[in-house]
């Protein structure tokens, strides 16, 4: 088994060029998502989905950031992607076993097995995976599984002109990321922190293989503040189902005991 691979997306380096979106579309030969004008800053991609595996968020804030000279205004850009969670909601809920953990530690949907039940979509705490109407299957980022097999860097990281998207062994990325946070703190950006870099950071997903460096609350980037793989809570529901089933059986036996005239 190869070392666990992942992305470290340093949003302070992102310039919002969308090269990652284009490279992803091109390499994976994804069709367009329709051409719409969202009205939301420069973001016409809006959200990750079945044929959108990278999405750059554009945040215009009336909040000063002392690395930008916009006065009371600052820009934030962030390239969002499937997080390849160490504990992945989609993978756990997949009823066909189409979603698997690869030798690189990434989460991969086998398109020839998926039957399009749609359960992974509601199981993803980040709203990443989605079903495409036309071909009825669920799709998401593969961490460029085909490229990794040939020792190539995933298309988005390769295309990123500022190394905002860094690809590599997860251990090394984590080290590099915490150094980067310290560096930013020293340089006067105390807001910088890592999102999902480890299991301690984000116990609900037990850490993200694609983690982020952010400078504002996760909600600002449309990321959940404390996500949890739903399977971590399913025991409660099974216990309730057991109680409900027992109650049904009791009611049925009660009905038979008290409701029937003896033959």
């Amino acid at each position: 088994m190869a070392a666990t691979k992942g992305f470290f997306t340093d949003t302070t380096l992102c310039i919002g060029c969308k090269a990652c979106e284009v490279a992803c579309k091109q390499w994976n030969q994804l069709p367009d998502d329709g051409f719409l004008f969202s009205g939301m800053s420069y973001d016409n991609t809006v959200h990750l989905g079945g044929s959108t595996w990278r999405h750059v968020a554009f945040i215009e804030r009336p909040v000063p950031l002392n690395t930008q000279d916009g006065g009371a205004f600052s820009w934030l850009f962030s390239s969002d992607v499937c997080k390849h969670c160490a504990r992945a909601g989609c993978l756990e809920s997949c009823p066909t076993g189409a979603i698997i953990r690869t030798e690189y530690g990434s989460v991969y949907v086998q398109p020839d097995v998926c039957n399009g039940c749609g359960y992974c979509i509601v199981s993803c705490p980040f709203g990443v995976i989605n079903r495409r109407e036309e071909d009825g299957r669920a799709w998401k980022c593969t961490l460029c599984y085909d490229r990794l097999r040939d020792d190539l860097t995933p298309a988005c990281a390769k295309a990123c002109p500022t190394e905002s998207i860094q690809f590599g062994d997860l251990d090394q990325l984590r080290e590099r990321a915490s150094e980067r946070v310290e560096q930013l703190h020293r340089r006067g950006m105390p807001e910088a922190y890592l999102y999902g870099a480890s299991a301690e950071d984000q116990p609900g997903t037990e850490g993200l293989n694609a983690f982020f460096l952010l400078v504002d609350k996760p909600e600002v980037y449309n990321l959940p503040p404390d996500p949890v793989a739903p399977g971590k809570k399913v025991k409660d529901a099974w216990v309730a189902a057991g109680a409900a089933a027992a109650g049904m059986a009791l009611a049925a036996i009660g009905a038979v005991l008290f409701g029937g005239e003896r033959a």
Partner: protein
Amino acid sequence: MNRTVRYKSSVEPVYTDGRDIDTEVATLTGEAADQEASGAADKHLKHEMQVWQQLPMPQPGDPTYYNVPMLNEPVWEWAIPTYYYVGGLTGAALVLSAAAQTGNSRGREELIRRCHWIGLIGASVSGGLLIYDLGMPSRFFNMLRVFRPTSVMNMGAWILAGTGAMAFLALTLRGRKNWRGKTGEIAGYLAGIFGAGLATYTGVLTANTAVPVWQASRKILPVLFGTSAMSSVGALFELTVENSEERRLTKIFGTAGQIAEFAASIAMEKQTSVVPRVGRPLRRGLSGFLWRTAMVLTAGGLVLGLIPKPTKRRRLAAGIAGTLGSALMRASVEHLGTASARDARASFQQQRAGYGAAELANRSNQ
């Protein structure tokens, strides 16, 4: 490969597969090369976009990303809530017939036989509805190529398969001689066990998601679905069965179900309102309207059924109200989920209030 037309109203419309790859010089071998673009993608955003009138001012305490939903919304349509109703009815009927097998009340043979028919037909219809809703119906059997306890849907597929098989055996073998009759008898009991699973697992399936309102009600949804399944059996018998000896049993079973269903609905309102934003779909919009209507119908059916000296007309009214209430309850739960997934603040506020992963940490500390 399907093609779609772009710039339809312009001088030069473009026909494209959404990639603009010239297949004379390039091959389509990428990971997503077999995704087809037929133009449906143009409608992929189901919510309304609002063009800014002024720079949106993020509220420091309550930020979102331009109110865009954080989660992708459920893709399940009418077939899935319908399945919840039909599967629940099937399961609860089989529980009742298994219990009836233990007794010797008058009319019980007719009741058992009718329940086994409901079991067989219900399981078949359920299967059909599930397959219909799949993106790739031809691959339904992929669900049965694995046994995955982590996937509630996989467990459900096996429960449904077991229910159908046991109902079939019970129906065809019960009452016959020797080992056949005995097998049928045992199959009847097993059908009851599978049936109890079928009527309640759908609650677990719904609860085991990232959708805030569903996750918040995970301790009550299976109970709500199970009790609603009981009331649907009672209501169906009131509507369709003339034999009063059979109905005496289903009436008790169904009435108990309706009382419990109503109590469970109230408990669900309580549980989901711990974080007010999470429970909002129960109070507002289409989902709130459906939820309330379902509760009123269930209560109405219950009251009509409890008035002494029942007339035929009142009985039918109670049956209709009960059936509609039970079916509408499943539909409303589906709509609650959609509304909840569309509301990014529901997830954010739920997690900020300590009901994300923190809930688990707090529990293990105690």
